[in-house]
């Protein structure tokens, strides 16, 4: 009986390992290359053009072609950073209750109708191009905002409303996953103790699903933070600190998208835009670490 020499199965396994390891290897190379690329371009502003990082993050004047009083290019990214955070957080604040309501409806109240009708439509929304969202934002939301609040209508409010609709499907579908992952016996136990459906949802289900629900919100925020074309059409693209919810301003992505075609590789104008991209990348990293962290905390509990 030969139990030691390699067999067909041993070879198969080696082949399997080689295939999957090389797949993950290729992906790692892709990821590393894009990260390296953005980092090297983005850091050039500080290394080659000697822009002070602190001044970059806190300056409010964005005119890369001009020099400021210190003889440095005017690349103050604070307006874009502020606006990006504001629209992201506001969009998340608006979208979360609706997403949770829809998720609760789909999982706890009317699972049949919810999954049959709402879910396909929600998934449909994910695929609609941002251009179409932006266009509807420009032709529908901006005039409404202008009508109610005056001004030009473009700005953080319009951006928030467009992003609200755009991240709604993401947050909803992840929340649905979070709720369905709550084991059935928790529901039965709570209802058996005489709790009403709402008490069960509020005290048992939402609490049990909380880490994953938070994850859903963060993924939604990550999507909002990185969205470009739709926001660009309704935010106004003025590199100004936002003074109100309806004043034209600019996000990191909209500034990047608007100006990048008009700059030449290697110039300060171009490098400064890549520094904005680097901030986007770092934020995306932060969002993912948050998800990771919350996931870990959820597991331990």
């Amino acid at each position, binding site marked *: 009986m030969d139990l030691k020499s390699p067999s067909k*199965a*041993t070879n*198969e*396994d080696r082949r*399997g*390992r080689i295939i*999957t*390891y090389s*797949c*993950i290897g290729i*992906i*790692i190379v*892709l*990821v*590393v*290359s*894009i990260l390296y690329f*953005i980092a090297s371009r983005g850091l050039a502003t500080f290394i080659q053009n000697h822009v002070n990082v602190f001044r970059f993050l806190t300056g409010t004047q964005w005119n890369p072609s001009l020099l400021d009083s210190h003889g440095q290019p005017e690349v103050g990214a604070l307006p874009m950073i502020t606006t990006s955070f504001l629209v992201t957080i506001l969009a998340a604040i608006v979208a979360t209750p*609706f997403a949770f*309501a*829809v998720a*609760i*409806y789909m999982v706890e*109240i009317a699972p049949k109708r919810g999954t049959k009708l*709402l879910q*396909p*439509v929600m*998934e*449909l*929304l*994910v*695929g*609609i*191009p941002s*251009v*179409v969202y*932006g*266009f*509807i934002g420009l032709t529908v939301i901006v005039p409404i905002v202008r009508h109610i609040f005056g001004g030009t209508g473009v700005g953080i409010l319009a951006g928030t409303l467009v992003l609200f*609709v755009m991240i709604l499907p993401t947050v909803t579908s992840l929340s649905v996953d979070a709720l369905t992952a709550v084991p059935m016996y928790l529901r039965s136990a709570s209802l058996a103790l005489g*709790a*009403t*459906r*709402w*008490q069960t*949802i*509020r005290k048992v289900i939402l609490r049990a699903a909380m880490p994953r629900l938070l994850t859903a919100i963060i993924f939604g925020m990550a*999507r909002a*933070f*990185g969205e*470009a*074309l739709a926001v660009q059409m309704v935010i106004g693209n003025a590199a100004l600190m936002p003074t109100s919810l309806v004043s034209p301003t600019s996000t990191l*992505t909209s500034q*990047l998208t608007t100006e990048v075609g008009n700059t030449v*590789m290697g110039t300060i104008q171009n490098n400064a835009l890549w520094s904005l*991209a680097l901030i986007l*990348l770092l934020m995306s*990293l932060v969002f*993912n670490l948050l998800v*990771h962290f919350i996931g870990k905390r959820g597991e331990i509990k």
Partner: protein
Amino acid sequence: MSSQQSNRVATIVINIMVAFVVLILIFLLGDILITGLPHVTLHLLTSPSQSFAAGGGIRDQLFNSFYLLVLTLLISFPLSLGAAIYLAEYAANNWLTSLIRTSIEVLSSLPSVVVGLFGYLLFVIQFKFGFSILSGAIALTFFNLPLLIRSIEGSLHAVPRSQHEAGISLGLSNWKTIKGIILPAALPGILTGIILSAGRVFGEAAALIYTAGESAPIVSYTNWNPLDSNSFLNPMRPAETLAVHIWKLNTEGVTPDAVSISAGASAVLVIVLLIFNLSARAIGNHLYQKGSGHK
């Protein structure tokens, strides 16, 4: 307020919020379809686009979108499948694995324009692929990978561990077990994931402007030689997709009928997405029923 009352109030509030969301959805889809459908004619679907004259169509853009999708899946599906199998079956539960996971996730939240520019500088310029479907497909792979890996890995995890044990207890290799037992069982979920990710690829514009380009040169649909530059199958030709075309019409369009073409194209896009969605569901259900033996 008694618990019964608060229960009733909460249910009403939730119903109102859901109704509000449904209204938004109906408005969005209604707006796109009602303004768009009247413009969706056979002429629109079968004519090439025009640079400045009226009467253009979206024939080439529609085909390009599908071709780009196929090519993207051809590149990204095998990679994500391998990577998902690695993560689901081989990866140790340690910091390296979570580093890999995090970096893949970061890809999915990168702004498309950044990926587009990266693709432009690396594939279009550095590798000399030019503005081409191939460059576009590789750029889109960056978005597609995290989506696909996540959904495939989820489907693999959904297959009970006992199936894996049954396989290896028969003296089968891990790989054979994964390939022959786990994958077929996970297939409905995987297919659904692919089709849903296809929707996102279909609607992407910003990443393609700099990679697949924004012009649709006239190609011959009878030339089946993918190496010929006039062939519709040539992956090295520039190709404007439907979503990019909509973008262009809305920003720099000079054709007099830009508005109606854009509306029609948006409606076509939504209909295609709808078809993807419904077929994902149908295929998923069909395979699921076949697998579980309930006819």
